[in-house]
């Protein structure tokens, strides 16, 4: 008889409340949102989708730098943010417009950042700046969640990342560290199917990404990330556990409907059929179907949401474009007090301005 057993069967089921056709499959996890709240959620979802899409146009016309679209991941990020508090800290990767905006980052700052100014990462909200090196920032969330426990503060941290990040060593270190130091943190892994051109099945031989948490002794769950009700239910419970020093890993199943960034062409590596199939699970469509069945959604309401969104977006873009850049800023924030060599270099540049 062999000593080494077969690899155990991994439970790859996921929590779902709304089926893709908008019907409720788990009554017990429905949020107790009234009609006004449901309208507001839909309205925010529309704003986020349109704010994200605006970037394509801005980039194509030279008004923004490269931008990574988050189309399709709205429900995951929104549900996560609805499940935490404003005092909690979030640690985005770079595809988190929804999470940052809902956590209080002004839209204008989001535009300013991608237009290419660090002031776009300076705001009141408890949201860290965008972190581009994949998989490296969940460790920061672990550290801050650790500090909150040591300082006896009632806050938690949430890091956002995607499937590609789960192949990075630093993420395994974060998974391993979090329960050891009892960090008040939630890992929000958005399995969107693709890391640029690499599909999740080339990223890992693991049946799920949630199972990666098992080795670190980290509580974990798999959820339908295109289902805002399921995501909200899971986020609330995860946040509650994190507040009790029990970190949690969430694998949210979603899909990156757009290109990796404005410089990418997904047609090179995935089929139109796959994209069209994914669109049938679009989180906005799902919420819309549910709301239509409740007689909340009407074409007029949708139009009203779109117009309000476009007005807010125009205002934010305008404010970002009217922000003036100052050459002193590229020197002044490296140290609390500028060093003598840097002060000299700052003067050197001034001679050429």
């Amino acid at each position, binding site marked *: 008889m062999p000593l080494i057993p077969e690899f155990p069967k991994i439970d790859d089921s996921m929590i779902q409340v709304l089926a893709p056709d908008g019907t409720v499959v788990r009554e017990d996890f429905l949020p107790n949102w009234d009609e006004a709240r449901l309208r507001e959620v839909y309205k925010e979802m529309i704003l986020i989708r349109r704010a994200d899409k605006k970037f394509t146009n801005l980039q194509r016309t030279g008004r923004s730098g490269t931008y990574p679209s988050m189309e399709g991941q709205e429900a995951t990020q929104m549900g996560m943010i609805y499940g935490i508090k404003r005092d909690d800290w979030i640690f985005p990767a770079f595809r988190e417009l929804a999470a940052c905006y809902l956590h209080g980052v002004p839209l204008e700052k989001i535009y300013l950042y991608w237009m290419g100014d660090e002031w776009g*990462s300076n705001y009141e909200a408890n949201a860290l*700046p965008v972190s581009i090196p994949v998989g*490296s920032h969940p460790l*920061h969330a*672990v550290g801050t969640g*650790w500090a909150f426990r040591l300082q006896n503060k009632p806050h938690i941290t949430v890091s956002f990342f995607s499937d590609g990040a789960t192949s990075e060593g630093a993420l395994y270190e*974060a998974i*391993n560290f979090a329960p050891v130091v009892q*960090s008040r943190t939630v890992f929000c892994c958005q399995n969107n199917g693709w890391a640029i051109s690499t599909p999740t099945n080339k990223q890992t031989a693991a049946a799920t990404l949630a199972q990666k948490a098992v080795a670190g002794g980290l509580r974990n769950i798999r959820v339908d990330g295109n289902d805002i009700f399921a995501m909200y239910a899971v986020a609330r419970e995860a946040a509650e556990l994190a507040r009790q020093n029990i970190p949690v890993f969430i694998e949210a199943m979603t899909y990156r409907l757009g290109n990796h960034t404005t410089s990418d062409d997904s047609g090179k590596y995935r089929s139109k059929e796959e994209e069209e199939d994914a669109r049938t699970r679009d989180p906005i469509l799902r919420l819309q179907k549910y709301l239509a069945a409740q007689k909340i959604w009407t074409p007029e309401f949708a139009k009203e949401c779109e117009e309000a969104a476009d007005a807010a977006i125009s205002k934010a873009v305008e404010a970002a474009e009217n922000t003036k850049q100052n050459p002193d800023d590229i020197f002044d924030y490296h140290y609390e007090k500028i060093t003598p060599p840097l002060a000299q270099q700052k003067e050197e540049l001034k001679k050429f301005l």
Partner: protein
Amino acid sequence: MPQRTIAEALNQALFLEMERDPSVMIMGEDVGIDGGVFRITDGLIKKFGEERVVDTPLAEAGIIGSAIGLAMAGMRPVCEMQFDGFVYPAFDQIVNHAARMRNRSRGKYTCPIVIRFPYCGGVRALEHHSESAETYYIHTPGLRVVCPSTPYDAKGLMLAAIRDPDPVIFQEPKKYYRNIKEEVPDEDYTVEIGKARVMIPGEHVTVIGWGAMIPLILKVHPHFAQKGINLEVIDLRTLSPLDTPTILESVQKTGRCVIVQEAPRTLGLAAEISAQIMENAVQFLQAPVQRVTGFDIIPPLLKLEEWNLPDEKRVIAGIESILE
């Protein structure tokens, strides 16, 4: 005044600052019960407990990455990397995050972290235990890099580093942890980061070094003094930002300069010092600036390492070459 070694001075600095500031914490591999492999954190866990002196998992990126999160939330982590050659798994966290967080957020988030580790060769150690890699950190905007050579400076720079609002790389000359003793006051004092020290004034040749090269330079000093040649010995103490004014002032006086560095030659700090002199004091030079350095090689294992390390003969030859 009590005599202390560099190891004892560092230990005392950590003790004093942990007592003064409850947000200071020590983290690293084996820094708790074991007191670190060089015993620099000895006894701290007993006094301050395991929430403040943390034996972390064996994961350097994990240590620095979580320290960044701790620091942004108001803690003051002092992280030990067990050896110079083991910092690299954390390099991404140091260079891409700790050094950049203040600038990236235009001052909203800061990373007051001390990353301390033993460096330098000459202790007959294994591979990856004898590195002098300060150039990587000096070349990274947003970091400060310090490297004491004496017990007094070790304590004062450590206290300054922990209180510094920005990340500090703290290189400790492991070869001299326990074999140099000098008077170190019991009380709290700091040595300003960014200031070199003229250890011995002299008028004929400026000899610049730091860390483990200082005891070597001090050894060759009498050789020249006997011949009536007075070396001006400068201990940089801080490698970034570089105290260029102190260097230039000395070279303007002596007209000759030798820089002694253990690290590989190409693009080492000696090259930058030489360039600063060329740009700002060439008219005072009576001879070319000379470098005495490690070779551009991987630190050899213990039977061969002495061929790489600058020694008395090479430093003397370097100085003599510019005396004619």
